[in-house]
């Protein structure tokens, strides 16, 4: 903060020095980064926040420090939104995911600037990451109405029955976002979860949470119903145990759980919560997520298979 004030003074002095014709110095419009719950942007119920710094240690902004109760509220909101979201047609979900890509495209400068500031990427790298993140939404938008054909279908049975299997969303999925890939990594874990009709509570990267809130602003203006994605910024060790043990959570994506992953998996076992263990790219930076065709591996862990037997001739 002190550093920032000094900079301001210096600028004012410079303005005075340049004489009467110079434009007056404009006050910075600083953004308050809040949580994203149920389609709204509330502060943490605890009122806490924590400083977020850039890759080289400059203060960027304060992010809300979510509490156990914010996590509880987020699960309740996600549960409430599940019925409506999962009942949408796959086609409609695809349209909405595509809409997210459209909205992100319009704000790509903001995302790129954020990636440069928060992660220290070069302008070219940031541009590549933002493009990949936007393309990821388009990718999963395409998958929404195709995943059922790929992993479901008609089963051959030895009897006078039609036998069909179809995937259905698991329910409320808690996602621990990758810690070192705050934009492309985050997109790569959220999009496959909601593409199939799940709703989600996401714990964003603790050290680089601002891109997640920028993304939330995109989601809030993309026809995505409130509560489908709920974003918490805060500490995994504080929020994680409560989310992992929560009986109304149906699945966990432990990608960003770090060392606590095993502990969370144990807690989740008490209520038979599905778990996706961290993959090798979990700790990597954005470049670990650049594969343009990640396939169905992040969708199938959060799908249940419903099989129907129907007698032939009735």
């Amino acid at each position, binding site marked *: 903060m002190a550093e920032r004030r000094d900079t301001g003074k210096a600028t004012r002095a410079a303005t005075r020095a340049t004489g009467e014709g110079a434009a007056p110095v404009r006050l910075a419009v600083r953004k308050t980064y809040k949580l994203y719950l149920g389609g709204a942007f509330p502060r943490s119920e605890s009122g806490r926040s924590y400083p977020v710094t850039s890759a080289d240690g400059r203060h960027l902004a304060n992010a809300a420090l979510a509490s156990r109760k914010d996590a509880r509220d987020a699960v309740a909101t996600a*549960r409430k939104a599940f019925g409506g979201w999962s009942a949408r047609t796959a086609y409609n979900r695809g349209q909405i995911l595509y809409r997210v890509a459209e909205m992100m495209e319009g704000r790509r400068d903001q995302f790129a600037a954020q990636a440069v500031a928060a992660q220290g990427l070069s302008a070219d790298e940031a541009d590549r990451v933002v493009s990949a993140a936007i393309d990821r939404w388009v990718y999963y938008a395409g998958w929404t109405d195709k995943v059922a054909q790929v992993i479901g279908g008609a089963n051959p049975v030895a009897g006078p029955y039609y036998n069909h299997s179809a995937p259905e969303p698991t329910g409320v999925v808690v996602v621990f976002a990758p810690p070192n890939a705050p934009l492309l990594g985050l997109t790569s874990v959220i999009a496959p979860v909601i593409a199939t009709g799940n709703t989600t509570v996401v714990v964003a990267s603790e050290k680089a949470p601002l891109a997640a809130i920028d993304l939330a602003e995109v989601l809030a203006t993309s026809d995505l119903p409130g509560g489908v994605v709920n974003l918490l910024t805060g500490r995994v060790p504080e929020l994680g145990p*409560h989310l992992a*043990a929560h*009986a*109304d959570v149906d699945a966990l994506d432990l990608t960003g759980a770090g060392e606590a992953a095993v502990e969370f998996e144990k807690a989740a076992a*008490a209520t038979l919560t599905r778990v996706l263990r961290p993959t090798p790219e979990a700790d990597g930076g954005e470049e670990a997520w650049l594969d343009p065709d990640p396939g169905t591996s992040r969708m199938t862990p959060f799908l249940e298979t419903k099989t129907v037997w129907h007698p032939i001739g009735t």
Partner: protein
Amino acid sequence: MPVPHTAFAPEAMSNRSLRAFLHGFPGVDEVGARARAQDLSTRSIKTTAKAEAIDLAIRMVDLTTLEGADTPGKVRSLCAKAVGPDPADRTVPRVGAVCVYPDMVATAVEALRGTGVAVASVATAFPSGRAPMEAKLADTRRAVADGAGEIDMVIDRGAFLSGDYLKVFEEIVAIKEACGAAHLKVILETGELATYDNVRRASHLAIRAGADFVKTSTGKVSPAATLPVTLVMLEAVRDHHAATGRRVGVKPAGGIRTTKDAIRNLVLVNEVVGPDWLTPALFRIGASSLLNDLLMQRTRLSTGTYPGPDYYTLD
């Protein structure tokens, strides 16, 4: 507060005397009532105090099903829930009563025999109260004969609002007589009474007519039991106790769905009438979905993890 009950002479009952009595009360400060309720609702009740409040609230619940689609099977399963709200935890107390329509009383009585859970029945053409007096009396007598220990009657809001206080008063007296030994709860339907002044007057009218309980709402009209309304009714009960020594109960019903709401009501009771009223004999909460939330909060306190609604019965 100076209660003008001295001006009240039951032997010389007329619309005029009732009007003089009821309009002699000072007006309710609406802004003040809201502010007081709001202020009290910010009290923080945690850990052991919360655990006690939850168990007390469970014992105060009038577990209610008042749907056109009620079946004997649904009433029986509700009764089973009233006796053992959480099958996974036998330390959960029983609820105060089960509240049903009159034709379901016999089913509920049979299901609850020997359990200590009372059967309450709505009567008098619930929820509108628009029926001839004979029908209302027959409704009540039948419910009592079938074994209902508590009767929830509705007042004639039309008569009350048009100033025919005597008619309302006499109806309550007649129903009270038909109740015999059964407790009478009088539903004011505060959502239709328009002002807090009317709530205060209707409360005093019902109390003087012999109500054992005053109840806010049927649950069929919105707004139902708001905190300021309950506050005004508790004040009426407090003032009546101060003037006569008789204790009348209060039952907010409708719209109380969360543990937080229930605990706010308990705080209100404690602050307005005092801890003597913190008993199921003098305070009840009419609800159906509230019970599951109380059970979830109870589990959360005892296990430290958040439970989900899938682990409790649907109602």
